[in-house]
């Protein structure tokens, strides 16, 4: 049985109660991108200030459940000040963390473990995969960020 404490870790509740990087940036010049979770009506607006290949600032507005709010808050803290390549890499890592692998879906075998050491606070969201209907809540912010970068054709340098 999935335990509620796996989902609502203290650090998640902390981000929910005191979300980081709330607010807006004037757009343009900032990139403004919206994400929706049609299932639960969550709405998220992300503002990105990108200069010289670096995500200088990020702000979030909108509303959602504790998981989507905490995930977006943690994301903003994780990607702020990072290069676009680093942001893209973080998006990929997070998506991997949230993937419910077929091996676990059909009830035998363990999911491959994402490398949690590189994820910092974000690793607290790992418990979400035990509650599959909530995965969309956790990924909303990341998908919206990814969409925003794509829509504006923001490319990293590709160098590692």
């Amino acid at each position, binding site marked *: 049985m999935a335990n509620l404490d796996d989902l609502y870790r203290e650090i998640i509740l902390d981000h929910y109660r005191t979300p980081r990087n709330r607010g807006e940036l004037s757009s343009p010049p900032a990139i403004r991108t919206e994400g929706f979770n049609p299932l639960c*009506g969550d709405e998220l607006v992300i503002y990105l200030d990108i200069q010289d290949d670096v995500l200088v600032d990020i702000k979030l507005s909108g509303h959602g459940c504790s998981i989507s709010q905490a995930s977006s808050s943690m994301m903003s803290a994780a990607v702020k000040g990072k290069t676009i390549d680093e942001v893209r890499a973080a998006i990929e890592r997070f998506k991997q963390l949230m993937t419910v692998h077929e091996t676990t879906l059909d009830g035998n075998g363990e999911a491959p473990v994402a490398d949690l050491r590189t994820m910092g606070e974000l690793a607290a969201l790992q418990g979400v995969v035990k*509650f599959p209907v909530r995965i969309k809540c956790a990924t909303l912010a990341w998908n919206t960020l990814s969409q925003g970068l794509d829509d504006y054709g923001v490319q990293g340098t590709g160098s590692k």
Partner: protein
Amino acid sequence: MSSYNPRRVRVDTPLLERVINGRPITYLDSASSTLPPRPVIEAMARYYELRHANVHRGVYQTAVEATDVYEGARAATARFINAPQGMDEVVFTKNTTESFNLLAKSWGAANLKAGDVVLVTEMEHHANIVPWFQLRDQTGIEVRFVPVSDDFRLDVSDLDRLLDGVKLFSFTAASNVLGTRNPVKELTRIAHDHGALVALDAAQSVGHQPTDVVDLDVDFFCFSAHKMLGPTGLGVFWTRAAILESMPPFLGGGGMIADVRRDGYVPADGPTRFEAGTPPIAETAGLTAAIRYLEGLGLANIARHEDELTGDALKRLANEFDGRVRVIGPADTVDRGGVLSLDVDGVHPHDVAQVLDQFGVCVRPGHHCAKPLMRRFNLAATARASFGPYSLTSDTDVLLEALGSAVTMFA
């Protein structure tokens, strides 16, 4: 005479024996779908075990029996809603949603032209909104809304003006979000005075109160079997025989034709014109059993019981939690059904439902397919608890216990 004891219904309902997260299930999601009692499940099993065959035109014994099951359900449904011309007025669909699509795409497309108005209300389910928008986008009709006032009732102060030019007033008997029961007879009389026909969304009423389409005097009537203790996959569309005969076919294919040649087809008469393809048959056996079961309980008894449960729950919700739990809907049981949409201060409905699940409590978070209504009250979602004929005050006890936990957790 009917005898009704909700504890007896509970015993009859196998799903209520389940244990969820170590607790007996507390099912409070009957507005989404009701739980079928054993007679309904057994009727469908018996159908498959003994009689299954495709319906119509069968000559062999079981095919005749299967057809009798199907047409028997039509007759039972006609009696259940008091269809004046009986079973010739009852069309089987997939659900309420398909019934409204049939109404819009057959009757609507044939009878409405650019500039004609369909009046709906701000508290409609998307099933009674989107098909009209689709028709609007095709033909240029106007879709108009009766607003909902701050007391969660229809604001009819301007109804006469809103009804100007209206060909059809299509509204819900009871809101699946607010619980509000609308004054169907009165609204119907006013609409008819303005020359409009009336369609009723009875999805939230048929399993919870007596139904009589003659007494209501409506012109179209739509509902789903799965919200009245019956199975999923089966809905009903009713209209007067005279209107039904004038309606063009909806889906095309087998079963709905009188003749097909290389140059065209002639549609069948009566309800079968709207029932293309092999219909749900076992489900109709389930519907007949559900009707019998509900009639055995007595729908007026169910209504009284659900009223009592709702009154008790409203009182307790108002008194506990220091006002942190708000009910989005009328505060007393006058003209109100057993649907309690909860807004918990500081806790998102998704989180409320997640914590409640830990107690085995089934409620539904979300917009309940009524986004215009949610917008009206500036809500993205609510956590909705709703009662059925098997609900007891002990369900409310567990709901309150679990809500207390949710409130504490996110405090």
